[in-house]
């Protein structure tokens, strides 16, 4: 496939910017360090603008749902009204004002906390479903370990379980840490691989 001229331009910009930032960490040249810092600052500004783009996209999609009546349109309407109200309060009262903080403390925080509580129930149901779906040694070890950790962390009055607590500590400090480090090393290699593919222009998520 022939590459479009604009794509080549984007590719050159992306690779050059990536290399400047990367080399800025290894080569001790003041000019390179200044350029690196400038690029990182631009990236931060662009990321801020991207949040605005994200919010506009969110509003656009929900506006479409409200304007073309569909099931669940009421939720979209609620979102649009909540957005307008919160936006007006933040404009009038500033984002750190008492009204803005009241909305954060008494609306957003409880809603997110209840989702977290819902997640606990969801996971409990999922564990039983997992046994039904995939009854093998891995599932049994997974569930057994989860139960041991939970019981070992629970305080039961009048019940002293030093063996269980030691087992829990050993599980957390030895196999869990070893496994987590192994997974993190793999993820680290994956991150390097992704970075190299972007830097060499093999992956180009920006050429549209």
């Amino acid at each position: 496939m022939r590459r479009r001229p604009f794509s080549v331009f984007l590719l050159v910009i992306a690779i050059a910017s990536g290399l400047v930032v990367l080399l800025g960490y290894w080569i001790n040249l003041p000019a390179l360090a200044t350029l690196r810092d400038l690029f990182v600052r631009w990236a931060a500004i662009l990321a801020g603008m991207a949040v605005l783009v994200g919010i506009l996209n969110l509003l656009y999609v929900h506006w479409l749902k409200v304007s073309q009546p569909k099931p669940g349109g009421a939720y979209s309407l609620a979102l649009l009204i909540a957005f307008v109200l919160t936006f007006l309060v933040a404009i009038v009262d500033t984002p750190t004002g008492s009204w803005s903080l009241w909305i954060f403390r008494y609306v957003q925080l409880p809603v997110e906390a209840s989702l977290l509580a819902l997640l606990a129930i969801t996971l409990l149901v999922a564990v039983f479903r997992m046994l039904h779906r995939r009854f093998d040694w891995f599932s049994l070890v997974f569930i057994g370990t989860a139960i041991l950790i939970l019981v070992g962390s629970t305080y039961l009055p009048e019940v002293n379980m030093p063996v269980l607590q030691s087992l829990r500590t050993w599980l957390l400090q030895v196999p869990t840490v070893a496994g987590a480090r192994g997974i993190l090393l793999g993820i680290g290699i994956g991150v390097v691989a992704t970075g190299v593919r972007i830097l060499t222009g093999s992956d180009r998520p920006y050429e549209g």
Partner: protein
Amino acid sequence: MNLSAWLSAEILGLGFLLTFALLFYIFYYWKHRASYQKELEELRRIDAFTRLRKTIGQAIENGRGLQISIGSGGLNGIRGAAGLVSLSMLLVITQKSCKGDQSPQVTSGDGALASLAQDTLHKAYRLAAVESNSKASQNQVTGITPFSYAAGAMLTILDQPLQANLLAGNFGSEAGLLAEAGERSSQLVIAGSDGLPAQSVMLATADDALIGEELFAGGAYLSAEPSHEASVKAQDILRWIIILIILAGVILKLAGAL
């Protein structure tokens, strides 16, 4: 000279990066001679990707869509890599499924990631020569905090007849809510993340979970480009090098040389 003082994090990092780049290029040019996609499957089969490939075909046959959640990790820092991998998977999946009756739905929890997802969707439709099938509403930012993102994406999952729900990107434990929503709608749920809490939650809630670095092999297993396959091969060799270095370190430590 003291070995540990000389081997600073920067030097190690540079060596790691250069080794990977060298291996990547060796395999990239070697790839042009022969495909080892089949070899890769035989060597290390990842069931999640095999099922995903089948599901894309089934979605087109059944006239149902696919939902792809690319997470809320953004592009800044180390979490950005998972987002970028999800975009390369999105490109392949959209290219394969965009000729069906239902367009794939993409949800994300970050504006920058959503902008790149929009670009990726355009590219996929352009490469498949069906640009007219593209809809602006198929790419949504459903919330900008992890849980608000999950709450919004759950509605998208429950809203329409979908064949499968793919979670690929940076997630936290909120991934459990998304997987559960897919399960409730009788969709196949395939999930992978770079976060440890998300991986353990996904193992319990998803039909197929991508553990460890399996997410980063997504491009190669979905047959994206030669570079992805070269990258997986280079990753494997680098992993063996790290294992040997760790073992050497253990032996040297036991011998009292470190």
